[in-house]
């Protein structure tokens, strides 16, 4: 199982039966593959759909049904299509229970940066700023360090923010961390990760209790 899949599998445990969930493009999309038995969530796609189903091969696709990454998908029974005004009334109005997004950087105050690297990459924020602002719970799902081995979990983001102090939970390949008024609390360590190893891999200040759990997932 890849690192990304392991992160996605851990995120899936945060979802409850019946939750309305928006999954960002990339790693977060994998979360729907790992829902525990008895947990069905309602996937919202910001381009105008609830109860989004799986990706459909192009030759079997309905050309009018796509996800927010322009891939052909199905709609599940009980689903509904709507336009972008309704989609963002739902998103900004707090009707999405959980949004899961990737990060370029995330910090101990709950700030997230994931939409631009000045001078390098300017993809735009799409619906991410609204999702992070409006969703009831914001989960960041990301590898703990970037390609250069540098911590993505920081004291303070250096890249332009997607939203200020909105992140609730950070799930990485090394740990699960909760953003609290006191700071970033380590809730679980991935198997084989020592408190010391986590601290060395993390630029942010961590609050770690002695009885921190080791993730049950292997």
């Amino acid at each position: 199982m890849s690192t990304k899949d392991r992160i996605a599998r851990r995120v899936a445990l945060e979802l409850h039966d019946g939750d309305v969930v928006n999954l960002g493009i990339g790693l977060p999309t994998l979360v729907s593959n790992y829902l525990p038995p008895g947990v069905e969530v309602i996937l919202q796609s910001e381009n105008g759909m609830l109860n989004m189903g799986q990706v459909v091969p192009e030759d079997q696709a309905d050309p009018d049904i796509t996800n927010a990454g322009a891939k052909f998908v199905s709609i599940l029974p009980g689903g509904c299509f709507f336009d972008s005004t309704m989609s963002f009334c739902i998103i900004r109005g707090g009707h999405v229970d959980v949004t899961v997004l990737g990060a370029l950087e995330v910090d101990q105050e709950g700030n997230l940066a994931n939409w631009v690297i000045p001078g390098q990459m300017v993809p735009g924020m799409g619906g991410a700023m609204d999702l992070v602002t409006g969703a009831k719970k914001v989960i960041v799902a990301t590898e703990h360090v970037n390609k250069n081995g540098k911590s993505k979990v920081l004291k303070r983001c250096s890249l332009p923010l997607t939203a200020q102090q909105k992140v609730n939970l950070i799930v990485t390949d090394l740990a699960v961390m909760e953003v609290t008024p006191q700071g970033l609390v380590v809730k679980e360590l991935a198997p084989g990760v020592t408190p010391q190893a986590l601290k060395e891999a993390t630029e942010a200040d961590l609050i770690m209790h002695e009885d921190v759990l080791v993730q049950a997932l292997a």
Partner: protein
Amino acid sequence: MAPATFYKKLENRVKKTRDKVVPVEEAMSFAESGLTLMIGGFLAHGTPELLIDKLVEKGVRDLTVIANDTGMPDKGIGKLVGKGQVRSCYVSHIGTNPETGRLLNSGKLEVNLVPQGTLVERIRCGGSGLGGVLTPTGLGTGIAEGKEILVIDGKEYLLDKPLRAQIAFLKAHKADKAGNLQYRGTSANFNPVMALAADLVVAQVDEVVEVGEIDPNLLHTPGILVDMLVVGGGER
């Protein structure tokens, strides 16, 4: 105090997602004195008459009602007004219910008159995380008094604030069990926007069908916005 009890009850309830049809009594168990209610309808068309009858029966009082109007004495919200159950209301019109005017004049009912287009936008703001509506409607009239006026690119706009409720009581034509709603004719009116703006959304519907039976392209209110479905009330 009432809202506190309501929120406690709401927190403890098991959310239904697959079959939202409930006996009307279950929906009514959340209705308490002192709550703010949104009620769909336009001059008692597209109004959940059954749910209103049950509110009258339960005798909850000191309600704040947000709706287009106060109906007629024997129809729609007029039935609640006539029983003295409404303490305050946000409406665009009370002319079809003389009893509202009488209670207003005797100081027993607070009436906040809001232009219809502003009222619907205030509800939409409350339901969609927006801070308020900037409208030209009402500029230079009495309703602008005490309100902030913003000048944007040389034009004036009134700032009107969001409205929300604890419960929205809606009326729709058809629903699937997951709560997706379809309206008919002019009976939609305030119902779809109110589905966004309350902590608990209860829809009275003429008919419920299985999930998947309604074309997902032709739905008006997404099921995730609706918590409970009450079938019937249809002397239609």
